């Protein structure tokens, strides 16, 4: 899987979220975007997922250049599974109905119900399929969100800080589920604050700070010996406690 971004610029009002982000990553399964808060990594992920339009720049994902207009972006989102920090399940629908909605209404899958059940089963949620999100724990909710994103069999999976809203126990429960995706060779691009997880599970890491991609390389190399002073300082600060 290849992702290359060139000179991406995105501003929100006066805030420059991305200021000429440029990088190229060639990864087998998992690319992790890491870096300090407010550095622009979530914005970068959202642009690649087709949720945000940059003012400038190009993105080439898996050999296809993204066109930043509503129609082609909608088509792009049909091939993407997206998981958010705040779960974003639909509160009026049960876990099963949450997974079914895109299968039935967007992708017109014939055996939607059995596929949705299989997706929930895969993440250990078989017993919870008829519960509403309010009756589930945070970890269960996020696993339903992952099941919903995966059930459509997406070409790419995007996750924006999938564990930031969870306590440590639920975090490891969700990280286990994400780590299992490796075995199914599901291409995954994620933003994470879990450095241990990024190191273990990601093939390639991109370090995003101050609206730029300062460094991008194999995960092992990055954590062993970061090439930029900013990344070294970041790792030092984060690994201090």
């Amino acid at each position, binding site marked *: 899987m290849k992702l290359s971004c060139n000179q991406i610029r995105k501003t929100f009002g006066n805030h420059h979220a991305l200021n000429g982000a440029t990088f190229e990553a060639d990864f087998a399964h998992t690319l992790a975007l890491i870096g300090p808060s407010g550095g622009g990594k979530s914005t970068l992920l959202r642009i690649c997922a087709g949720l945000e339009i940059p003012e400038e720049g190009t993105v080439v994902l898996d050999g296809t250049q993204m066109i930043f207009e509503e129609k082609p972006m909608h088509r792009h*989102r*049909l091939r993407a599974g997206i998981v958010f920090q705040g779960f*974003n399940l639909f509160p009026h629908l049960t876990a099963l109905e949450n997974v079914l909605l895109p299968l039935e209404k967007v992708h017109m899958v014939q055996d939607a119900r059995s596929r949705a059940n299989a997706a929930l089963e895969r993440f250990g949620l078989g017993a919870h399929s008829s519960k509403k999100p309010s009756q589930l724990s945070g970890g269960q909710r996020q696993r339903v969100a992952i099941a919903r994103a995966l059930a459509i069999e997406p070409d790419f999976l995007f996750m924006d800080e999938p564990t930031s809203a969870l306590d440590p126990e639920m975090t490891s429960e969700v990280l286990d589920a994400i780590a299992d995706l490796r075995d199914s060779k599901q291409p995954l691009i994620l933003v994470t604050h879990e450095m241990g997880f990024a190191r273990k599970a990601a093939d390639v890491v991109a370090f995003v700070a101050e609206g730029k991609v300062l460094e991008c390389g194999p995960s092992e190399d990055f954590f062993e010996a970061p090439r930029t002073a900013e990344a070294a300082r970041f790792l030092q600060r984060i690994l201090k406690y």
Partner: protein
Amino acid sequence: MNARQLFFDTPRSPTPAWAKWVLGLIGALLFAAACFALLAGTTKNWESVWGYRVVFWKGWLLTVQLSAVSLVLSSFLGVVAALARRSTFLPLRGFATAYVEIVRGTPLLVLLYFLFYVVANAAGWNDRVAVGVLVLSLFSGAYIAEIVRAGISSVGESQRESARAIGLTTAQAYRYVVFPQALRNSLPPLAGQFASIIKDSSLLSVVGAAELTYSAQQINSATFSTLESFLPLAIGYLVLTIPVSLAARRMEKHLVFET
């Protein structure tokens, strides 16, 4: 239990349920006694009013019918106006905003006078009931538009984003994600508005629509009996509005449990 508990229900010393019933019963008896003292001297004329029961019954039926039609019509108008106020097309948004603000700023009685005696009259339309229902629907529709608009806004940005993320089109996002949640959030105020439609329909009597209030006025002027005409009138409305507000309360409890 002490005397204080009989009148003050606090979390620390709650009034027992039986005491509330007893208190309620005493209150009702006192009220009845006061009414009796006030009205015992007046002469009652139930027999002659009973003779007009068909007029009363017909009026009540018309009230039910025009309330029901207004309910459907104003719900439709309200949803359309709420969506129009969110439109990106400015003339549509402006028109909807003007409708909602002008109607909400005008008393129903004034609106009735103006639309019936000025507009409908000029158009040569003299069907009192039809014009009345239309005015009532226009009036209530403006309030429902605001309720629906608040309901739609109460569905957060993250829900819309999530709908976009799973590939729903805008229309699908409204159909499957926004409306079901907006409706749930709007049900209690909507129920209140529906009760208002029933009560406000009494104003149609001023343009001569033969609904419940009009019938009671007719019976009153024919029999010269006030209590006997207007007490059944009040009861005629209460049997319609109390079930609506009970249903609203039940829905509210249900919603609390759901979220």
